[in-house]
């Protein structure tokens, strides 16, 4: 393959709604793009972590003499070597950087080793031994909530509860008596591993000015400074975090992984840079997981299919520490009724501590869990009432102006109904009966649907804001300072597209500066389906300011001209009345340095009513989706084959159709793994599926063709009408596949993943009991 000449890719100026090649595509396909661990040179040290290996214990001693004596070992650090505070945590500051008195999960970090090379590092880690007294562990939500169970965090006044929430709207107790049909179900969903291509990694050194520079695979560079600094006992201004392109994160790098350890290592590295790079096994052991959940549901409806009452009891396992577990569960509770109008609701949720691996964010936060349950409940209600599953969803789906389950009025774009309608006219929906009839010997076929909602941005108590910065360089290029991380979803490219469109430029005129706390402005995390919405809005403002500044400079160059007379073209502006063209480079030379740089600010709007409806407040803007799946179940093995998939999405207007489709397809593939094969097994606090040979993520052979259809409803507050698209696709596959499996088999598997063995078991039980659910 020939390397394209600069600018050959994209000659015409950027447009909105048209695919533009990703700025990172060529470098990634050819392996040239650098991840955090690739930013090294010269003489550097390796840092690595000794991990506990036991799920719950009192730590009484750390023996590091043998490790320290090993030639090539520079230092072995323990909690005694932490100059500042040995506790981190975004909401609850209770996780030690290096364990001091207690071990709360098998992956707990106990000692940090610096060595000349990887081999010595490994050897040294093996030589460290621990003294501890094993403590009885807590390994399930049920155990955690028992009064008599051991307390995992002694000082937590709520016992083992991280957070509990309750939502009551209407009068659900009374309302259930008014229902014609009430269905009930208990659903279980597993912990899920992110399994990103790039495991947790980073590179750190002390700059000449004394600043600690940490290049890390992180979604949260700005927030990280405020977590790292207290550990070192210094001011956050003394920390600089740089986040290059990430090789996937999906929430697993929303917060601290290697950052504090690297900073600590640099204090003892004798002036040399330090690199840390977890291998796959360490990533499994120490990285955060999607919270497993157990959910009790009751849904009541009238004879015509109208939902009247909902009761949910949600139990999320937060693991040993829960950096955002309470918030994850809360978002689940907020979405417990999915995209439906239900006037009488009782939702209670708990997130608890256990001695299982640490729970944390994962694409969808707490929403895939509840959607898995609710969307199966909807099918169960439809079946009980003899109503078509799409019809019952259309009947109850929220529309603009409706109140959702929290009683919050949906004042912004609300496309649930449009998604369902689009699905109803799709050939896959219309052709479903014919397809089902063509099953071969020992095969049964089923079709399932699911409808989802996903809130965009942070809850109202946390300002969801971004500050964009853009520059006309002296070379005449437009440089976008992206303060939000691109973890692989392509948002940085979309920023180039947005700014390029506003300023009439093509790809060759654009430059991107990726997040760097010393160069870009604080713009929040790359998470919560907010990255392009919030930063994109700020960037449009910054780009329009720069447009004005450039035109002002142009007016000064063309005597007698007015601002309206200028047209932006790639690399230049044209004064249309005279036809005179001015190169951007030329204009830049005449502009003040300060005039060549502009900024923009945006803060996401929040609800004005029911702010107290739930912890941290309810969300205002949601994306919606409707998914349809064809499955074929093998009666001899129980194996589920996903044959076709349709994902209809309301994420507002689409800026780049390719990047949009990648987000939907990626989320659906990840959702299929969640539905069918991914089972993060932990027994008594020890991980059973320790690597990718036993933790089964889908391969390209397991993922069928995915039709992704956007329903482009304008979101008036969004950048060019856009809403978040990163997470909405994640929640659909599990319930859609579960409903399809139920359609095929006449029985339901209430626990995910729906492995061949699980489905086969359900088929046998059905045969033996002769029952149909």
């Amino acid at each position, binding site marked *: 393959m020939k390397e394209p000449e600069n600018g050959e890719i994209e000659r015409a100026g950027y447009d909105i709604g048209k695919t533009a090649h990703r700025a990172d595509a060529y470098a990634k396909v050819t392996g040239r793009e650098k991840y955090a661990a690739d930013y090294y040179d010269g003489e550097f040290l390796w840092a690595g972590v000794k991990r506990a290996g036991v799920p719950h214990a009192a730590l009484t001693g750390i023996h590091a003499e043998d490790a320290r004596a090993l030639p090539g070992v520079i230092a072995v650090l323990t909690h005694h070597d932490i100059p500042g505070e040995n506790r981190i945590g975004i909401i609850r500051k209770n996780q030690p950087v290096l364990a001091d008195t207690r071990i709360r999960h098998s992956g707990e970090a106990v000692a940090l080793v610096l060595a000349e090379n990887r081999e010595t590092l490994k050897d040294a880690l093996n030589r460290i031994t621990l003294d501890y007294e094993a403590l009885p562990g807590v390994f399930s939500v049920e155990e955690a909530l028992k009064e008599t169970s051991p307390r995992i965090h002694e000082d937590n006044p709520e016992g083992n509860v991280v957070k509990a929430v309750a939502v009551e709207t209407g009068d659900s107790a009374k309302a259930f008596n008014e229902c014609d049909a009430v269905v009930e179900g208990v659903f279980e969903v597993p912990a899920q591993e992110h399994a990103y291509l790039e495991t947790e990694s980073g590179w750190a050194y002390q700059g000449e000015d004394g600043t600690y520079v940490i290049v890390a695979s992180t979604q949260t560079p700005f927030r990280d400074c405020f977590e790292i600094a207290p550990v070192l006992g210094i001011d956050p201004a003394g920390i600089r975090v740089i986040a290059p392109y990430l090789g996937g994160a999906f929430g697993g790098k929303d917060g601290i992984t290697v950052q504090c350890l690297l900073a600590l290592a640099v204090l003892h590295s004798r002036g040399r840079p330090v690199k840390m790079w977890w291998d796959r096994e360490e990533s499994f052991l120490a990285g955060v997981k999607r919270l497993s959940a157990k959910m009790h549901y009751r849904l009541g409806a009238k004879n015509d299919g109208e939902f009247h009452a909902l009761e949910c009891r949600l139990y999320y396992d937060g693991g040993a520490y829960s950096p955002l577990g309470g918030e994850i569960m809360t978002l689940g509770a907020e979405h417990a009724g999915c995209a439906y109008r239900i006037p009488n609701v009782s939702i209670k949720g708990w997130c608890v501590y256990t001695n299982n691996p640490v729970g944390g964010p994962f694409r969808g936060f707490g929403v895939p869990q509840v959607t898995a349950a609710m969307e199966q409940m909807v099918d169960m209600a439809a079946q009980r009432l003899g109503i078509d599953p799409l019809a019952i969803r259309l009947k109850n789906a929220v529309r603009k102006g409706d109140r959702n389950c929290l009683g919050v009025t949906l004042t912004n774009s609300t496309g649930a109904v449009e998604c369902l309608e689009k699905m109803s006219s799709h050939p896959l929906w219309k052709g479903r009966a014919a397809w089902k009839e063509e099953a071969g010997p020992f095969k049964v076929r089923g079709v399932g649907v699911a409808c989802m909602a996903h809130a965009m941005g942070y809850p109202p108590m946390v300002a969801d804001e971004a500050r964009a910065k853009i520059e006309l360089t002296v070379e005449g290029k437009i440089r976008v300072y992206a303060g939000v991380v691109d973890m692989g979803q392509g948002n940085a490219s979309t920023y180039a597209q947005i700014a390029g469109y506003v300023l009439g430029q093509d790809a060759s005129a654009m430059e991107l500066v990726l997040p760097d706390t010393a160069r870009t402005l604080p713009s929040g995390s790359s998470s919560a389906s907010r990255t392009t919405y919030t930063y994109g809005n700020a960037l449009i403002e910054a780009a329009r300011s720069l447009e004005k500044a450039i035109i002002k400079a142009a007016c000064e160059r063309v005597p007698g001209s007015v601002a309206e007379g200028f047209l932006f073209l790639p690399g230049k502006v044209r004064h249309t009345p005279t036809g005179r063209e001015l190169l951007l480079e030329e204009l830049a030379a005449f502009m003040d340095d300060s005039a060549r740089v502009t900024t923009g600010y945006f803060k996401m709007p929040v609800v004005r009513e029911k702010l107290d409806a739930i912890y941290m407040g309810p969300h205002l803007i949601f994306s919606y989706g409707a998914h349809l799946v064809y499955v074929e179940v093998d009666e001899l*093995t129980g194996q589920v084959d996903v044959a076709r998939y349709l994902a209809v999405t309301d994420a507002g207007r689409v800026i780049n159709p390719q990047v949009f489709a990648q987000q939907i397809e990626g989320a659906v593939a990840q959702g299929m793994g969640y539905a069918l094969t991914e089972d993060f097994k932990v027994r008594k606090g020890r991980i059973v599926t320790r690597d990718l040979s036993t933790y089964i993520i889908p391969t390209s052979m397991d993922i069928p063709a995915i039709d992704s259809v956007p329903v482009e409803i304008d979101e008036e507050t969004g950048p060019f009408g856009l809403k978040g698209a990163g997470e909405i696709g994640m929640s659909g596959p599990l319930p859609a596949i579960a409903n399809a499996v139920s359609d095929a088999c006449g029985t339901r598997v209430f626990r995910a993943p729906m492995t061949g063995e699980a489905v086969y078991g359900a088929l046998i039980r059905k045969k033996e009991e002769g029952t149909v659910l």
Partner: protein
Amino acid sequence: MTTVYRPGSLDEFWDMREKYGEALVFAGGTDLFVKLRALNKYPPVLIGLAGVKELQSIEELSGAVFIGAHATHTRLLSHPRIREHFPVLASALRSLGSPPIRNMGTIGGNICTASPAGDVLPPLYVLGAQVELRKKDGSRRVPIREFILGPGTTALTDGELLSGVWLKKEDSFTIHHFEKVGQRKALAIAVASLAALVTTTETGIVEKARFAWGSVGPTVVTSQDAEDALVGLPLGLKALQSIVPIVERSVSPIDDVRASAAYRKALAGNLVVRLAGRGREPLRA
């Protein structure tokens, strides 16, 4: 530090073997390197067979085919003799690992790893394969079922090398069938597998049958009783279901992280039942 030697011929190999008694020998390395990484123990010397010219050939010799131990799965899959005469083997190879693993992995390596889940093993059992074992000063042939003794253990003695596999052409079977149940469609270790060769009369009566199951016992499992019970019956649902209890008695699966013993036992029987859907048409892989 590990030194890897790559002899170019068997003569060179024997010299190295003598010189480095503690060396581990590997073919494609797709099993060995995973194991070494997991144990974090690397031997000082490894001997790789990729360059040994005598181990690469695939030849047809008077009614039989010799497959050199270092023939990769990819080479076997693309070989016309294999596809023509041993579709059951080709089908199993297609289910093995992924393209990169098939490019590296070899038939000899799959046999010597002696995993009950080795994908090529059930086909080799039903095809009556013999393995050729060489010493510096001689060779012997052993039926595969006598060569594999247990999980990870074989009849290979000190100073012996598995040099290849002999397969008699089996054109008399009208049905060549292989099915693997894995946890996903590629890069999957067998939860259970079945290789079957069946010949029926014009009217569909079973004349002879051979079955071999993977992952349902310490080694590949065969069942003469099940095969005998099927002979004389019309190949169909009823006859196949009638031998399921015999199959279930023949296997001795275990629980592990991938599946329970009970599920594996059920699969062993059900995979035989699958043949009912296959009709009489010869199944070419």
